[in-house]
């Protein structure tokens, strides 16, 4: 699913517009695999798989692969529908610069959920 992140986000003008003030690097960990995501003005400029040695990132969202699988279902089970839900119930860990994450929370949440749907811009989000 993570492989589709850049193409799906970048093909969604509404989502790119929402993130137009954001240029950042963050980390998604899927089990043992780490993915470094670079955002440039709302576009996903790159998704690079680790391992990394001292690579910089602002915040990291870490969860076992089975959790991300549940999160990316079209209708996730209760507790797996949102990173805050998963964080509350201990399914994932949200770490690092929480400030920048929260400043752009809706954008980041929409980016993370993008693999779940064909295109967010196809619904009323646009």
């Amino acid at each position, binding site marked *: 699913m993570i492989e589709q992140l850049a193409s799906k986000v970048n093909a969604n003008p509404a989502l790119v517009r929402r993130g137009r003030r954001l240029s950042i690097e963050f980390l998604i960990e899927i089990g043992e695999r780490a993915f470094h995501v670079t955002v440039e003005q709302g576009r996903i400029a790159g998704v690079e798989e680790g391992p990394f040695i001292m690579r910089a990132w602002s915040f990291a969202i870490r969860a076992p692969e089975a959790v991300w699988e549940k999160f990316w279902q*079209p*209708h*996730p089970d*209760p*507790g797996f*529908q*949102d*990173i*805050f*839900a998963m964080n*509350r*119930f201990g399914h994932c860990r949200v770490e690092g610069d929480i*400030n920048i994450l*929260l*400043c752009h*929370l*809706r*954008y*980041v*949440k929409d980016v993370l959920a993008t693999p779940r749907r064909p295109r967010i811009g196809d*619904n*009323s*989000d646009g």
Partner: protein
Amino acid sequence: MVELEPIIGRYLTLSIAGRDHRIYFEEAGQGTPLVCLHTAGAHSSQFRHLMCDPAVTDRFRVMAFDLPWHGKSTPPPGWQDEEYLLTSDFYVAAVIAFLDALELDKPVVMGCSMGGRVVIRLAVEHSQRMQAVIGLEGSDRPAPWYDNSWTDHPDFVNGDFCVGLVSGLCAPQSPDEFRWETLWHYYQGGTGVFKGDMHFFRTDSDYTANSADIDTALCPVYLMTGEYDYSCTPEATIRTADRIPGAEAIIMKEVGHFPMSENPTAFRAYLLPVLDSIQART
């Protein structure tokens, strides 16, 4: 000729805790008053679907008011230099002032989220006045699920943040149109109001010491919570119902934290039997 919705909005001034507040409320229907309390940082529009449902309005006078600082209710004069902090005492006083002003006889009071919390105290202290209470996404004990000390930081003081914060509380099955309308209510909230409501919800509403005192023969208590709610979890609701002898907990499938506005069709299927049950007891 366009078709007008049956909802009518009015204003009145309520004296709450010794201070006048200009309050907006809307209503539809006839019969037993069903007074609805909105969630934190939102307003009475959350109940618009209920007010347009003849299965409800044929027998209930559905009413919802905006708390001071919310929706179309005005913040009190001098607000510009105040920090808004909702307290348990003020919240209860506001509801009672509304019931008094409109001379509502034995209403059913139904609140969601922080409204679902305050109905517990209303039932403890004012059971004689009410026919029943319904707590949606309600419990008798705060259970904060995130650090909110930073939520009045200038970086976050905008609607986008509040929407991002609560967006996951809607169930994935809720229709996009109504999910986003529900979130729009959070875009509309005044600066600092959501955090001010959290003062009540997180720190000033632990009713566990008294909730067992509710006489549910006099004032039945129904607690209805969506399975996707991670703010007020189904477990928290069930624990609350376990503490209140006679209280009924209902866990709603494929529903989140805003049942009446995020998925009105799913919600009414759960609510109508509860309203039937309340009416059957009178």
